[in-house]
């Protein structure tokens, strides 16, 4: 039971109080009797795996959805559900995962939209708005010109502007849905600073996340949801990281990364003098049988571009890719597939999954010829091969006919991954294989990658997730400015200062410790 007492035992009226919130979509229960409250001047993390019900709870708390049962009270007043405007007037503001800013309008216009400052004549007083906007931005440590167009700003800044918009309209309860899912690490630190300063002003903040570091960095208290049930509600000081993870996934996460068996010796994939775009450094990469090669680097270092060039989504300026002895046709995914190359792209929704199609159809597409005769599909062949693969991926679905748009991120990723495994794969290209994937599914994806490499597949894995690079790969390349700037073998990957080494290489600082080690 959550208390409504602050530390010095004075009775405090909670800013936001949810009692017995129950919700279901299409007969499937999403939230079961959730009760918790937010006190002024506190930051609460709402943790849980994808599909645990976090976003739905956020939407109920901000009046967007009407729960089947239960009430939401803001400072003791009932929130009329299904009415965002009313929630707004009570001081509840939500910054959604997909930002609601208007990209073609300027920063100050976005800030004042719906409550524009007018002159005596009733026209817009742009000068006054620009001036006020500048003040707000400075207050939050942003030097951005209020006359910049929203679309020209990085996502992280846009998000902070959304927060400014909400709080300057008097929001006392701020709900942030996955605030860090789309922003760079540097911006996370700034977000944390802003969240803390708002807390000190007495705002009650609730944010959703499934990343441990962020819970530690920002929250005072953590509420964990699992399958729509509140399983833990504790001050952060009273719970360990393992405790949170266990609460989220409902079992011990004994080991996130499985053991890596040794790689083989035969070269499977060879990239020779590949120049991604005119003027870039030629890249040479070899991957051996059963080897997992990590690709590290900052955003924009060219990891995705390299993978796209290898697979044929992008035509390189020059250079060749050889797979199992034969040269791949540049710019032809079809040829790559025919030669047993597979890819799991970075942008799952944009390049991997076809959300409007079923699991069966998505999984059929890359190897369609194997399931058909004279162009006619054999449902029997499709079902038997695909259901077997999806079983080995431990896909959670209501059946192969379920559409991908109704699956969680982790399960979508399993389909995008698993669809290749109905046939032979010699080399596998992975680009951020666990982005937007929750902890439980993540460890399963690691298990699958390791098993596949153990069975002889050559794997190239680009990742921004440092533990992934360090614990999963046999060897890692560090990229910067569309070129390879360093290579680390397994021994180096296990050394204690490796993160620092990678960071120095990736950011272009002098890399002292690596001098003697680079081949």
């Amino acid at each position, binding site marked *: 039971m959550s208390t409504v007492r602050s530390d010095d035992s004075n009775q405090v009226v909670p800013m936001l109080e949810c009692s017995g919130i129950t919700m279901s979509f*299409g007969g499937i229960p999403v939230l079961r009797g959730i009760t918790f409250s937010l006190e002024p001047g506190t930051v609460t993390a709402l943790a849980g795996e994808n599909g645990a019900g976090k976003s739905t709870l956020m939407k109920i708390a901000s009046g967007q959805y009407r729960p089947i049962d239960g009430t939401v009270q803001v400072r003791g007043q009932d929130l009329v559900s299904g009415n965002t405007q009313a929630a707004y007037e009570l001081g509840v503001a939500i910054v959604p995962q997909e930002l609601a800013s208007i990209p073609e309008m300027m920063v100050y216009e976005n800030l004042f939209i719906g409550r524009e400052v007018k002159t005596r004549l009733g026209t817009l007083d742009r000068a006054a708005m620009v001036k006020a906007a500048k003040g707000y931005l400075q207050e939050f440590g942003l030097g951005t010109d209020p006359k910049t167009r929203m679309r020209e700003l990085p996502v992280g800044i846009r998000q902070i502007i959304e927060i400014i918009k909400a709080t300057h309209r008097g929001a006392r309860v701020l709900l942030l849905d996955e605030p860090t899912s789309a922003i760079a690490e540097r911006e996370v630190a700034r977000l944390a600073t802003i969240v803390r300063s708002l807390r000190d002003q007495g705002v009650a903040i609730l944010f959703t996340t499934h990343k441990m570091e962020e819970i530690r960095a920002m929250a005072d208290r953590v509420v964990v949801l699992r399958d729509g049930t509140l399983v833990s509600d504790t001050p952060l000081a009273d719970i360990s990281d393992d405790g949170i993870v266990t609460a989220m996934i409902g079992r011990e996460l004994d080991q996130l990364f499985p053991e890596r068996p040794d790689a083989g010796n035969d070269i499977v994939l060879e990239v020779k003098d590949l120049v991604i775009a005119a003027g870039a450094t030629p890249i040479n990469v070899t991957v051996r049988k059963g080897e997992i090669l990590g690709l590290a680097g900052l955003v924009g270092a060219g990891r995705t571009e390299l993978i796209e060039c290898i*697979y044929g989504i992008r035509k390189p300026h020059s250079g060749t890719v050889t797979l199992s002895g034969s040269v791949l046709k540049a710019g032809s995914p079809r040829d790559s597939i025919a030669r047993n190359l597979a890819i799991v792209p970075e942008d799952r929704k*944009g390049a*991997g999954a076809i959300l409007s199609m079923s699991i069966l159809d998505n999984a059929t597409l890359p190897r*369609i010829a194997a399931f058909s005769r004279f162009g*006619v599909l054999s449902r029997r062949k499709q079902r038997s091969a695909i259901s077997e693969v999806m079983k080995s991926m431990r896909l959670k679905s209501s059946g192969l006919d379920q559409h991908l748009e109704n699956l969680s991120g982790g399960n979508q990723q399993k389909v995008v991954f698993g669809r290749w495994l109905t046939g032979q794969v010699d080399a596998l290209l992975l680009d951020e294989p666990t982005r937007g994937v929750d902890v439980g599914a993540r460890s399963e994806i690691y298990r699958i990658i390791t098993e596949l490499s153990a069975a002889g597949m050559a794997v190239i894995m680009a990742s921004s997730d440092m533990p992934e690079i360090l614990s999963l790969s046999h060897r890692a390349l560090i990229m910067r400015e569309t070129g390879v700037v360093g290579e680390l073998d397994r021994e180096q990957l296990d050394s204690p200062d490796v993160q620092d080494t990678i960071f120095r290489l990736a950011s272009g600082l002098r890399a002292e410790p690596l001098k003697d080690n680079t081949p």
Partner: protein
Amino acid sequence: MNTTATAPAALQRSNWKELAGNFLVRHIMVVVMLLIVAFFAYRSARFATPDNLTNILIAAAPFALIALGQTLVILTGGIDLSVGSVMAVSAMAAAWTAKNAGDNLLLPLVAAVVAGILAGSINGFIVSQLGVPPFITTLGMLTLASGFAYVIGDGAPINGLPASFGLFANTQVLGLTLPVVLMIVAILGLAFVMKRTNYGLRVYAIGGNRLAAEIAGVRSRRILFSVYAISGLLAGLSGLMLASRVITGAPNLGQGYELDAIAAVVIGGASLMGGRGTVWGTAIGLLLIQTINNGLDLLLVPAYWQSVIKGVIIVAAVGVDVWAARRGRR
């Protein structure tokens, strides 16, 4: 914890209700259709007779062909505005050939098919290879093909065709006229293609997410080209059927048909964004529109009012569908 004890019973009850609701929601257009049929049957004694049913099917046939072509195009996220004009130019090409080739049946057929495929292929080439938006490309083709239709007849209809030209529309097969048979075959055939073949799956795939489809090995340009070519071919056949019915080539034949075809596809539940829709849906949408046309005629509603009523019904039908889909999702 003790509150959960009652949950299963409550859940089952709501499931039963929701299942019934879901069925209605999923087949809302069939329900709308039945309501409209019931209304007309109640108001007009002639409506629910076998003769009238045949009339509806005969009227539906030329629309069916272009609506099926349109379904493919819309599934890829495109649109084909040119089908009405392509019908006209194909009909004129066929009529011209019939007039000059005498009693030959094959040559007019070839002329109509070639004209249709040619127009469709030009659309397909421009959309798939040059990347011009389908709306613009086919709008251009609408004007161009219509112009050619008038050029072929020198601005006038082509009359005095051999009587055999009427065989395309008036031959009876199994008690049905040839266009109706062609419509039924086309619906069944295309439904099979879209549901059970590689080609169908690829059309859905590039409409759902073109980049993802390409990464999965689909040659999207070929598929895009093909759907416009097929749409052109079907428009050509449709134009021939229509011209044959009156044994005349009229340059204004098929004018505005593209709008009824698009309406049929959309009423059938397809998304103009691509990736969603079915051949069965289009067939229902088509029958819905034709039933309304026929019923209003029987009730002696003046033509201009028919147009008004049809407009309202189209938007209302799709509105009901959108509402149902939203309910289904929640």
